[in-house]
């Protein structure tokens, strides 16, 4: 009888649990997601969906903002005026991308101040790639080709993300990123056709940035706790490993045009899978950099905090100026009404 009783309990209690855990609004929500109807800011959404989006979008925004630092480093030393104007335009774009994304995150009920706070206190992460130094001019080329290339691979599917403001921001960003990648490849192409020293510089930059670039797709699928739910909610459309594989396939071909190589002895075309096989990723390094111990983590954060603090008087002055104008308007209205 024990077995029977257990079975009864199991079926009935599970049924009860089911109806309790999947409340009506959640069901309706998932149904809309499944029918590819975008979720907009004032629609009902599960708290976990909101939290997941805030985490992802704000970290994405932080990455754009911190990402200005390694490139800004080379603006004054760009080798020609042409390179200088394009680099300035690119860095300005990154600031814009950060702003689109902060605005998208704000629609979920978190304030800009809170997000900046989370970045500066280390509570929120940003892409680990920006904790590597830009040692030579070739690094600027590689960032455009590999880092922005990886970002595009990641971001194109996000244009169809289930959350309306996020997908709209991503559409705008993707349009602009393509110039970034092309300007980067052009820099490398020039170096790859230059002197022996320039060629060495090009290969050296590729060697240093390749592995960190493919780490940008995040932990492998079996170590990525959020992927399943994120895919069910259609925030993400492909897994980290799927996107990483695509990126490797693309770059393994593109590098041939430069006459350079990718620093992976295991990189080889696999007839069976129709993909490139590649060597193991050093996840220990990835975790280290994420946890604040990359080559430039402290420097990047110090630069962000300093910029924020040094800009405080500008923000205060602008607010004070607006208040003064408001007071003037109020007193002139009063004067006019007294006259009449």
């Amino acid at each position, binding site marked *: 009888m024990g077995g029977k009783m257990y079975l009864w309990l199991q079926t009935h209690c599970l049924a009860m649990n089911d109806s309790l855990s999947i409340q009506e609004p959640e069901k309706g929500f998932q149904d809309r997601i499944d029918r590819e109807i975008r979720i*907009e800011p*004032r629609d*009902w959404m599960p708290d976990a969906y909101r939290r997941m989006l805030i985490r992802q979008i704000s970290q994405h925004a932080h990455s754009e903002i911190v990402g200005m630092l390694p490139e800004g480093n080379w603006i004054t030393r760009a080798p020609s005026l042409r390179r200088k104007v394009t680099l300035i335009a690119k860095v300005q774009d990154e600031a814009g991308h950060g702003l*689109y994304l902060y605005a998208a995150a704000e629609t979920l*009920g978190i304030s800009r101040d809170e997000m900046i706070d989370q970045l500066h206190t280390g509570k929120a992460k940003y892409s680990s790639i920006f904790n590597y130094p830009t040692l030579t001019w070739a690094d600027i080329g590689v960032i455009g080709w590999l880092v922005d290339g990886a970002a595009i691979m990641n971001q194109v599917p996000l244009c169809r993300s289930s959350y309306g403001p996020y997908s709209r921001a991503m559409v705008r960003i993707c349009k602009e990123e393509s110039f970034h990648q092309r300007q980067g490849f052009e820099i490398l192409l020039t170096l790859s056709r230059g002197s022996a020293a320039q060629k060495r510089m090009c290969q050296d930059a590729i060697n240093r940035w390749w592995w960190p670039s493919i780490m940008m797709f995040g932990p492998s699928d079996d170590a990525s706790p959020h992927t399943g739910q994120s895919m069910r909610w259609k925030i993400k459309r492909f897994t980290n490993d799927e996107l990483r594989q695509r990126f490797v396939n693309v770059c393994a071909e593109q590098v041939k045009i430069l006459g350079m190589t990718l620093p992976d002895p295991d990189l080889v075309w696999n007839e069976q899978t129709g993909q490139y096989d590649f060597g193991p990723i050093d996840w220990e390094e990835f975790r280290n950099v994420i946890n604040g111990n990359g080559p430039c983590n402290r420097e990047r954060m110090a630069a962000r905090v300093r910029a924020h603090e040094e800009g405080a008087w500008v923000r205060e002055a602008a*607010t004070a100026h607006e208040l003064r104008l408001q007071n003037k308007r109020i007193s002139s209205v009063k004067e006019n009404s007294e006259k009449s």
Partner: protein
Amino acid sequence: MNPENELSSNNPSPRAGSWPLWEVFIRSRQGLDHKHAGSLHAADARMAIENARDVYTRRMEGVSIWVVESRHLHASDPDEAGALYDPANDKIYRHPTFYVLPDELKNM
């Protein structure tokens, strides 16, 4: 708070930021409507327009910008969408295809 940022009751309330939020509308070329492009923070209207120029029109996306402080926008409630828009669904006679006319009839 604006239509994008105005939150329904089950959401946490945002902490007040230092500069107010503005909604940006851009006319992409003469003859077209202004269309919502996004939002940004600014101390006053002039700064909002200047920031909108930098953030939303770096690639000839616009010839005219409107900004309005987000708190001045009012939006319909998504929970009332049914009551508001359903009545339109059963009035197909408002569409030209509702009327059955012979194929020989031209220029109509």
